[in-house]
């Protein structure tokens, strides 16, 4: 059975890789299997995790959580889309989800993307930390601090939408977008290297587990 599984996995892996050449029937088969099986798999997973695992067991437990019924009612309202005359009711749970999401995340995003970001940027330029003698930091650290402060400042200037990017302001915005692009370049290289490890993993499967050319 294991051998059969390995052959199926190899067939599907090569089918997906064949897309690098061009679209072909083998890829179409693999794509359809992938999409179909994963959709079915997620349906079953969500049914057992949410409807059965969370809702049904939560409501029928000796210490029932009746708040779960609110979610069930919202879910049921969503299904009313299938009844066109009252399909408009399905907009209510959608509004609930979008509104609750915005309300819940505003605090988290403000804390992490604003407060903590500013806190990290507010560091002394010429010393390693507040309270240490001024000009105590090495040249390397000082340059690093200047890059962080300057990069954050100009990067933020780039994201001003209500002021024309002209003159000094435009110059700062241009430095900001350059800083962002250099960061993207570094991030691109780093991520490509991590994706290479995924490719190596698949190659190990093909040449090791399947063809047994690597031991």
């Amino acid at each position: 059975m294991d051998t059969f599984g390995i052959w199926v996995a190899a067939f599907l892996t090569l089918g997906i890789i064949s897309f690098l050449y061009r679209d072909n029937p083998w890829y179409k088969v693999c794509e359809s299997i992938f999409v179909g099986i994963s959709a079915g798999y997620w349906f079953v997973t969500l049914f057992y995790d949410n409807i059965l695992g969370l809702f049904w067991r939560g409501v029928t437990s000796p210490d029932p959580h009746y708040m779960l019924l609110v979610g069930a009612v919202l879910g049921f309202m969503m299904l009313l889309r299938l009844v066109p005359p009252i399909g408009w009711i399905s907009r209510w749970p959608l509004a609930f989800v979008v509104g609750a999401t915005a309300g819940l995340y505003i605090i988290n995003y403000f804390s992490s993307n604003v407060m903590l970001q500013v806190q990290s940027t507010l560091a002394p330029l010429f010393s390693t930390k507040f309270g240490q003698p001024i000009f105590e930091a090495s040249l390397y650290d000082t340059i690093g601090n200047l890059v962080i402060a300057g990069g954050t400042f100009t990067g933020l200037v780039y994201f001003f939408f209500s002021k024309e990017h002209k003159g000094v302001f435009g110059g700062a915005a241009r430095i900001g977008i350059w800083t962002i692009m250099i960061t993207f370049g570094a991030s691109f290289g780093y991520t490509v290297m991590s994706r290479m490890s995924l490719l190596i993993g698949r190659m190990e499967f093909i040449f090791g587990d399947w063809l047994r050319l690597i031991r």
Partner: protein
Amino acid sequence: MTFNSSVRFFLKVGSVITNRTILFSLTLLLWASLSAAQPPVDSSTAGLFNTPPPDVTPVAPRNLVVMDNPNDAGHAVIITWDSSIDDHPGGKVTAYKILRSQNKESGFAKVAEVPAGSQQYIDNDAADNIPYYYKIMAVNSSRQAGQLLWQVSSETDIFGPVESKPQWFDMRRLNVFIGMIILCGLIIFYINQAKSGKKLFIRKIAGLDAVDEAVGRATEMGKKIFFIPGTSDMDNVQTIAGITILGRVAQLAAEYETWIEVPVSRSLVMVTAKEIVKEAYTKAGRPDSFRDEQVHYLTDDQFGYAAGIDGMVVREKPATIFFMGNFYAESLILSETGNSIGAIQIAGTGQPSQLPFFVAACDYTLIGEELFAASAYLSREPKLLGSLKGQDIGKAIILVAIIVGILLESFNLFQLSNYFKVIG
């Protein structure tokens, strides 16, 4: 021996046996009842069998203070004490035991044992609004191969009663609250200004200017438009921002009578996108042109979704592809496939790790906040423009704080960063 003497002998023996049995039973009962009356034995001393050496009993810790743990949702009491004078390396304290009872006189049970050197413990097992009494026991014990040889201890006075209570506000996060009030105040102020008719400027965003061009190109070529809203659900603000842009793109497509297709990976996104596209067609005056199959579900699986879209892209060769929302590792797979068929591609995401791929493979990319500004830019609605202006003023305040804060910290004048610390 006659019969009578034999009977007397057996009766005597029997009475002795009976008396001894009763005596034995009474002894057993007495022992059992005495055992039952003993207080419960600490399991940690169960193996105790040696007498402790002289002068090993530690001095009790001092200044025990117990109070409700502040800024929490209840069920916690904070206990602090000053270490025993015998608590030092090589000293007589090996651990502290925290004992709790609801009765001042008796019933103290161990709730925790912390190592020597500790001066604080948070009892997270306290019920709210129940008075508790606490005491700390400084313990000195000796073990050999895991077996307890001896143990001695001394206790503090009893502290209490103390009740755990939940608080409405976490005062440690007051700075976040003030920041939010300022930001929301600015946004509301500028929304009102925009509503009152004040003209609000918004700078050019190249990626959004290209939306009309991209839709027009698809119309000229007589090909489809694909709109990919990412792999996250409606609980992600990027998906919400992407879906908002979909409204504008779908309206343009409806006006130009160009087919727009939205493959999605989440059921909630499908339902929302259907509503948005349908409304866009109605706004464009073509409600009958909308087809349910324009917005369709593929799979929740990230790479299954990517494989499905790749297949659709190479077979149907859309003229324009929009990637607007939250993307992960599938970003390059999707955008590179779109690039290979020569489609004009406009992407927008707030995922810093995926932006480089979109920048490399797409014609235009909305970077982070540009995605969130897009709905205001495209619709020019006063409400959204006012919100954008309010956010910009918030950014200006942050810029000033950064300059002032860095100068103050660089010259050791004031540590402004402390006011941006987020606790809890």
